[in-house]
């Protein structure tokens, strides 16, 4: 558990936005960072409420893996699957380059 009271600096927010793949402008960082600190401080109140003996709940109903018979059912055609794509090439999703300059 973190020892210090939680707060998010502008740099923290920039780092988290980077992890979340969102380009935040300077103005957005100025605007959002203080708000996020306030939110985090308020939710931090739950630390220590539940002891080690309390199991976590990920879903409100018991979850078990669900299997079905391995039968062929209709799916989307390639045309349907590509219908919302920003760019298409030879029946494929066309994306910008995925490797950096050094690669």
């Amino acid at each position, binding site marked *: 558990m973190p020892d210090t009271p939680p707060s998010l600096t502008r740099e*923290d927010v920039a780092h988290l936005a980077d992890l979340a793949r*969102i380009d935040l402008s300077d103005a957005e960082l100025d605007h959002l960072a203080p708000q*996020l600190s306030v939110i985090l401080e*308020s939710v931090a109140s*739950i630390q220590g409420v539940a002891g080690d003996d309390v199991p976590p709940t990920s879903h409100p109903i018991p979850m078990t893996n669900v299997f079905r018979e391995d039968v062929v059912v209709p799916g989307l055609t390639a045309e349907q699957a590509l219908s*919302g794509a920003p760019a298409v090439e030879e029946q494929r999703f066309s994306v910008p380059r995925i490797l950096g300059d050094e690669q």
Partner: protein
Amino acid sequence: MSAATTDWTRRTAAELADALAAGEVTSVELTRAHLDRIAAVDGDADSGVHAFLHVDAEGALAQARASDERRAAGAPLHALDGVPIAVKDVLATTGLPTTCGSRILEGWVPPYDATVVAKLKAAGLPILGKTNMDEFAMGSSTEHSAYGPTRNPWDLTRIPGGSGGGSAAAVAAYEAPLAIGTDTGGSIRQPGAVTGTVGVKPTYGAVSRYGLVALANSLDQVGPVTRTVLDSALLQDLIGGHDPRDSTSIPQELPSLVEAARQGATGDLTGLKVGVVTELSGEGWQPGVKARFDETVALLVDAGAEVVEVSCPNIVHAIAAYYLVLPAECSSNLAKFDAMRYGRRVLPAGVEAPSAEEVMRASRDEGFGDEVKRRIIIGTYALSSGYYDAYYGQAQKIRTLIARDFDAAFEQVDVLVSPTAPTTAFKLGEKLDDPLAMYAGDLATIPANLAGIPGISVPAGLADEDGLPVGFQVLAPAMADDRVYRVGAAVEALLARTWGGALLAQAPELEEVAR
């Protein structure tokens, strides 16, 4: 309204179904009446109710014509065949845009139907259009829609609740007799409360989530938005049930909800045990909310119910737990909006031959609004190494504690009751840039989502101080959705006697928007 005029938009869905069955009206006439009403009062981002993001007049009329043909041919029909409906813009609809109130999905037309939408189409309900919402269902006011807010039909300067403000406002403004909503932390029930309408969050897993764009998988649930409890029951009976395409869908059948609503409408609650949740009893909330709640509880006693106070002590941690679980799940869910396979692609300015990652960053910055960014960043933090146990892990444990509190409470009582929201509809803009103030309004609705139990909001009257609607919430154990319908219908019937009709009849007439 005089008896001589037949304004079909003022009728309940059950009445419309009867009128269709009796041959008094056609589905085309009903559908056209609602499309005319939409054209008259819905307006746009700047004026009018703005409940709809997309109206599909042509499609709805074609579905209505098909319904009339089926009826003329004597085919066996679902009770609601031909009764039009509006659908929240978070459910996938073939042939109709599905934006989730976000720029990142602007213009996207899904290649498949959500299971709930497929069921509506199969049953023959013409789909009038898609309703406005907070972006990706994050918000309690519909102000976080990228396409402009929805306005409350009771007072166009106020919020209609959220995230499903569009669906609630559409039924409150008589633009649709029925609507579909989704409830992750109160997004069906709180808009119902502040617009004087009925909204139900079913048991988690009782209605398929296939084709629902996920906000938080473990909390989201699709449900009915209507003007009466019976109409909600008709709709949930239709959209509910097991779906092999949703692995969290419950395989068991629920008891008939229409039957429960009809039973409740007798107003007799003899033998029912009702618990007022101590932590949600309205102490310190808006006085008019507390007053209408207390009066409604007194009515339940008159109707034969035994009312006791029940404590669910861990509810005080519900908001904090929710605002960790939700951001964690949404930051992961919204990672799929990467501008590669569908949705909006934005090229970063001034970058020659940008990489996929640069395009992703620019698209997500421009495509997402402030509230979505706030929650994604909080979620990213809560899930990051070193903080996971302290935040997300703790929040999951609090879900367990809250579920245990409900289990213990339901050993003593059949249903729990509370006001749906601590205040009536606030002014547009009032809390827009104060996330914590906005979150605090979800206190009474969030616990049901964390525990997966069903809840209903029914109108409880108008607050004295502002004349705006107050909601009364009923919660029941998982799979006992019939109880929220029974008690909700009883409250509705008992209050209608004191009001001499429906609460919505007291709403001011909407002015027609300039066309």
